[in-house]
């Protein structure tokens, strides 16, 4: 496995004493805190469509971001060259945010290693020969088409990356991490005499090649094909408020939008979240306990350390319905005297960190999913959902269902077309009237966008019943 400090000092002409003097340059005009974020990432992608591999792509990205914090102010600069002169220039630029003239010399750093390795990988997908990867895509293509003669087309893609980071802070920490990440995606198009529908599936995580077993690949293929076929029979979705049952897994996007973003510390510190000032208050029914856990093995949202060099952790956001915690980064925790939670993340060295989610899910309840469905006279069962979005300030959030069925007299009946569901974050979870014991995390496909930055995340949910949500169908 790669040792990040050796990786950067060996690959580039830079030493630990260089890093120490660069931190001094960053604080040359004062400031409370500075850090350097070294990144080297390789990204590969492979695309299959119309039964042929249409392209193979490889990107190499490297650079250093320098950040200086002075009170509530942040100065940030970066360079694409990992060399002392370029980083020094960036450090001087970032330093401008601070105004005092107090001179700080070099800042000593000592090496720290992450306490654990949540994603040991025997062989990186990055090192895998291309023909072997192509074989995975071909298998999914064959399997999708074999599912039903109406599956006319499969698009399959594999994206993998390997990111090595090294973070040096003015608090004296020098810590690195090596982060593998892979995602397989499948889209199937079903064509029944010109009536078209699509289905999506996929998964991955911080994993190696062995993760994509035949069984896993076949499951992706069957799932995308099945969804496309089911949709061929879909009727118009209903419109109006009704009982909604969410199936387990990726439906956890509900939590991500309804409460997750609203509990990021930056929005709350500034009083602009619908959840601002609600700590200790009831924001969900007693059935709901929601956590964000960046320390789960191999998950897409997991990290040994966050992008500020702090260990990730399990943070209880909502406990039995009561708001318990916010997701913190360095800046917000400093300004509010809160403990770090390891949620300071960034897309790359070109971006400054901010509080972000990792793996966010609701804990199991006591109900059985079958009983929940049987308890609904008329409602909507959402099995699969697409993307979501939230207005942090007024709390309104949406997510779109992509596979849904009517529930009539306690039974799941006809499939219905995609529709957007809308709710209000601070009270949506107060309407959760049952939580089942079938928690599932999504299979590893999620990406979250905030302020123009994308980071990989994971969500999870057991089957839950919401007594009322507005369903945006047409009938």
């Amino acid at each position, binding site marked *: 496995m790669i040792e990040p400090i050796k990786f950067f000092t060996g690959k580039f002409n830079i030493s630990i004493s260089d890093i120490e003097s660069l931190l001094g340059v960053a604080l040359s005009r004062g400031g409370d805190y500075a850090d350097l974020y070294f990144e080297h990432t390789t*990204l590969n*992608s492979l695309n299959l469509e119309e039964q*042929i591999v*249409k*392209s*193979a*792509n*490889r*990107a*190499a*990205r*490297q*650079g250093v971001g320098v950040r200086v914090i002075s009170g*509530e*102010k*942040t*100065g940030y*600069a*970066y360079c*694409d060259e990992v060399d002392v002169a370029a980083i020094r220039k*960036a450090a001087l630029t970032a330093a*401008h945010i601070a105004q005092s003239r107090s001179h700080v010399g070099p800042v000593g750093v000592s090496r720290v290693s992450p306490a654990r390795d949540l994603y040991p990988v025997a062989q990186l997908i990055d090192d895998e020969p*291309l023909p072997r990867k*192509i074989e995975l895509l071909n298998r999914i293509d064959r399997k999708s088409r074999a599912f039903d003669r109406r599956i*006319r*087309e499969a*698009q399959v893609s594999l994206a993998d990356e390997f990111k090595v980071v090294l973070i040096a802070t003015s608090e004296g920490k020098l810590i690195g991490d090596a982060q593998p990440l892979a995602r397989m995606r499948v889209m199937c*198009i079903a*064509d029944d005499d010109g009536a*078209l*529908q*699509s289905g999506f599936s996929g998964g991955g995580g911080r994993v190696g090649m062995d993760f994509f077993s035949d069984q896993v690949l076949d499951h992706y293929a069957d799932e995308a094909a099945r969804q496309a076929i089911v949709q061929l029979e879909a009727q118009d*979705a209903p*419109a*109006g*408020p009704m009982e909604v049952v969410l199936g387990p897994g990726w439906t956890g996007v509900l939590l991500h939008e309804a409460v997750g973003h609203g509990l990021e510390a930056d929005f709350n510190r*500034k*009083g*602009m979240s*619908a959840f601002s000032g609600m700590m200790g208050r009831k924001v969900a029914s007693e059935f709901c306990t929601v956590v964000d856990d960046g320390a789960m093995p191999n998950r897409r949202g997991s990290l040994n350390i966050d992008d500020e060099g702090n260990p990730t952790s399990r943070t209880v956001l909502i406990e039995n319905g009561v708001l318990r915690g916010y997701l913190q980064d360095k800046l917000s925790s400093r300004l509010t005297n809160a403990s770090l939670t390891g949620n300071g993340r960034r897309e790359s060295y*070109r971006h*400054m960190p901010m509080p972000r989610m990792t793996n966010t899910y609701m804990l199991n309840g006591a109900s059985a999913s079958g009983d929940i469905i049987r308890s609904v006279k008329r409602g909507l069962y959402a099995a699969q959902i*697409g993307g*979501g*979005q939230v207005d942090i*300030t*007024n709390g*309104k959030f*949406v*997510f*779109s269902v992509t596979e849904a069925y009517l529930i009539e007299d306690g039974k799941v009946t006809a499939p219905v*077309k*995609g529709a*957007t569901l*809308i709710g209000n974050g601070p009270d949506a979870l107060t309407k959760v009237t049952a939580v089942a014991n079938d928690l599932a995390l999504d299979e590893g496909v999620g990406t979250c966008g905030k302020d123009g930055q994308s980071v990989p995340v994971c969500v999870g949910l057991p089957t839950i019943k919401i007594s009322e949500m*507005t*369903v*945006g*169908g*047409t009938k």
Partner: protein
Amino acid sequence: MITTELLSDIVNQAVKHGATEVEAFGVESTEFHVEVRLGEVEKLQEAASRGIGLRVLYQSRQASSSTSDVSPQAIEELITSAVEMAKLTSVDDAAALPYGDELAREIADLGLYDPGVGKLTTDRKIEMARSAEEAARGADPRITNSEGSACSTTTSKTILVTSAGFAGEYQGTTCALTVAPIAKEGGQMQVAAWGDRQRALASLDSPEALGREAARRVLRKLNARKVPTQEAPVVFESSAAEELLGDFFVAVDGYSIFRRASFLVGRLGETVAAPALTVIDDGRMRGAVGSRPFDGEGLAARRTVVVENGVLKNYLLNTYTARKLGLRATASATRALTGAPVVGFSNFFIAPGVYQTDEIIASVKNGFYVTEMLGFGFNAVTGDFSRGASGWWIENGKLAFPVEEVTVAGNFRDMLRGIEMIGNDLRFRGRTAAPTIKIDRMMVSGG
């Protein structure tokens, strides 16, 4: 530094390594971003960056590579990895560089570069952001907080060199100013963001005008409520109509068409919308953010009429999708550093109609005026549309009360045909623009 000579050299080397067609793309840019909140500078970011992307074909097999490291060693790796990968992908007959006669012969000066943008001092940019926020906060005592105001500028140089003999380069600038005040009343808190993005500083709305408009937009959201579920006429304010246009783009993107993944497949030459609707993509508009002298494959930018008086005239195509469909490319290739070019729009807009916004609202007895939308509920394969929305309810031709937490839904086939009125209020604030649009009937789902 990335130069035409460096990229030409890369193209030649890739050919020597066995590539049959090669395209090298380089970008150098500087960015500046400052955020002011409650009058104080909160974030300041400044950097220069660059990258080289390489696409190669080896006997109709395609691969690409990119790097932010321009050292000789990294460039050697860039070339060998692309060529080696291309030997292992599949033969794809449509994958090729453009025909020689399609390539731009001259690099048109479209007024994309404003030297004034690069000369703006940091203090001036901070002052612009501060003025915008002050104008918003000073507008009304109910504006009690702010997400902040941001001023961003970029300058960039784009170079493209291909083995088919194309070599072109252009420079551009952008400047942007956004502001997002927060208002509170009766236990309800609302935010609204407003801004402008232009190539030239002189075209940018003044900080004060942006601040005042942001204030107007947030104040009108206060005290919003749900409405009962019903079918009703829906008027999309210009900025919401712009989002509909963004969804519509997916349905005319050449990739959706050759994949048969659009409800507009096979409809060229047919009436797909009300006669009032004309949709245009124009890469040659002078000084516009989406303009470019040549596209991501070296084709001269052009004006493409997508829908003319309701009739579908053109899809938007790059070289690949054009060949798949047996049509001519519309110079719509857009590329990132990595990967094959995709189809993108340049300046994509709905041609303005004749109506004042007031006249459009006055024509509605009972309906919904949508000012903001939330979510991604559009399926280009089927045309099904369902998104979160907020705005105002219209009663007897007048704005009656603010509305939130509802959805609007329909099918794009019906929505396009149901366009009854188009406003005359077209203004570009980026690469897409749309005037106010009235659709005869949609499902509004609420309480």
